């Protein structure tokens, strides 16, 4: 049962340019990669990946529109409705895991490192367009012995894309699994990079959602529902989807370019 419960924001932390973490009490267990439908009464309800799944739960909001702007400006004590958790998260395997996150995509990935809870079993690569958009670098360092940062403009860490950096790591290390989240074109490149070295990967997608429970179909990608069949999909599934990295659905359900 994923019925909505009302809770109050207990803490709000600015993570980077236009990105804010909200923490709140929510008693249901959440698996890494699952998401919540978060309601700001009188404004909107939006799907948000859980960025903290232990203790006080948390979401990390990137301001992209009215709803996310209202959400990120909530102060401690503000009332929100939360339903879920929804979706199929990451399926972990024994061995060493490589996490590759772009921008706000880190939000859904770090709970995996919390879950693994072994600094030698997970490496973390964090990328963003510019240094202001890098999030969770310190948190990542507390969870992994190997954390690397890249920015497209070179303002911090390596200059270049996080996938370019991932390629070098994939070539020299024996990872058993790669997990990624970020802009879909980055994910498309990551799937190809993993395919070249034959390492399985799982990617978390983002789509416009209404029901969140697999009913309405507004988040469909070639017939798969991001809310119920995903949001995490194996790379070999995504590779076969012509809409992956190219198309999404608008609020009318019409196919539009990403």
């Amino acid at each position, binding site marked *: 049962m994923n019925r909505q419960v009302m809770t109050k924001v207990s803490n709000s932390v600015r993570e980077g340019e236009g990105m804010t973490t909200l923490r709140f009490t929510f008693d249901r267990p959440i698996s890494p990669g699952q998401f919540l439908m978060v309601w700001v009464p009188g404004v909107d309800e939006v799907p948000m990946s859980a960025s903290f799944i232990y203790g006080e739960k948390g979401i990390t909001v990137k301001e992209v529109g009215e709803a996310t702007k209202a959400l990120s400006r909530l102060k401690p004590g503000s009332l929100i409705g939360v339903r879920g958790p929804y979706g199929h998260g990451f399926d972990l395997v024994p061995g060493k895991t490589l996490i590759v996150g772009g921008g706000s995509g880190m939000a859904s990935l770090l709970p995996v490192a919390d879950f693994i809870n072994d600094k030698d079993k997970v490496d973390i690569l964090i990328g963003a367009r510019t240094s202001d958009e890098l999030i969770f670098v310190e948190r990542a360092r507390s969870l992994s012995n190997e954390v690397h940062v890249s920015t497209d403009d070179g303002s911090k860490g390596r200059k270049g894309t996080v996938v370019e950096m991932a390629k070098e790591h994939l070539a020299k290390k024996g990872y058993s699994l790669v997990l990624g989240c970020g802009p879909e074109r980055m994910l498309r490149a990551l799937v190809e990079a993993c395919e070249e070295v034959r390492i399985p990967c799982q990617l978390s997608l983002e789509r416009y959602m209404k*029901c969140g429970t697999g*009913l309405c*179909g507004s988040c469909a990608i070639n017939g*798969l529902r991001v809310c119920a069949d995903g949001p995490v999909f194996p790379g070999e599934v995504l590779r076969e989807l012509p809409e992956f990295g190219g198309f999404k659905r608008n609020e009318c*359900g019409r196919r539009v370019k990403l």
Partner: protein
Amino acid sequence: MNQVLPTKRMTSLRVSLAGLTLPNPIMLASGMMGETGGSLMKVAEAGAGAVVTKSIGSEPRPGYPNPTLVELEEGYLNAMGLPNPGIAAFEEEMEVVRLCPVPIIGSVFASSAKEFSYLAERMQVYGASAVELNLSCPHAKGYGMEVGVDPEAVEAIVSAVKSSCKIPVFAKLTPNTHDLVAVGKAVQGAGGDAIVAINTLKGMSISVEARRPILSNKGGGLSGPAVKAIGLRCVFDLSAALEIPIIGVGGIENWRDAVEYIMAGASAVQIGSGIGRRGLGVFKEVIEGMALFMSENGYSSIEGMRGVAHE
């Protein structure tokens, strides 16, 4: 499907419905996974005997802002607001289902008989096996339920659609009326080929903490197990009064629910909310359970079991 051992006779779930042949009577209800061709194909792969598209109108509509769905203990409350890409853009989705192995029923909504006819004719051109008129959406102003409670308006719409297209015409009715049988008779009188009953019931959910209705539209439509007893009674009453087939819908999520509807007089049933509550595997589960029940109880066909509760 698991092999079901035949008792005396082989059990067949095949049904003939208003000229269509369905491999089994468990259909997808409109509004669920019917906005894209790809998701309709997934439902057909999951075992549905026919699939119904989301209700499509003349123009693109974004629907209402979220929240559009509330999960309740015994069902869902929703007010999507008829989001759809519009009939012109829907052609590309219908292209995707061209090779679908089961019948595709195109659901349409409109505010006039003329507009309904136009949309039905387009669905026919796109290859739909039948058209389902949404005369019953309870939460979109000017559409659906406001016309669906008036027998004269319903008769005018069904007559107009029947004269504009050749494919079978189904009318989906609302239970939010005091005289459903009168509306059913209007559909039959106008030449409608089948009735789909029921759509959601008017409902609401309020957050006491936020002191306001949860749905952005305030009111919505209730579905799921909470409405099953109502749907069953509607199907029973309609089938007692009418000759045309009734397709039962409302709260079906296991074989027992489906058999109840068939025994009440339904020729086929539709599953909607059950997909969210039980997953896509609900189709296979209901089909297998129904086949086993039939073979254990000596029913060789759906038709032989249909309406036995009236006897």
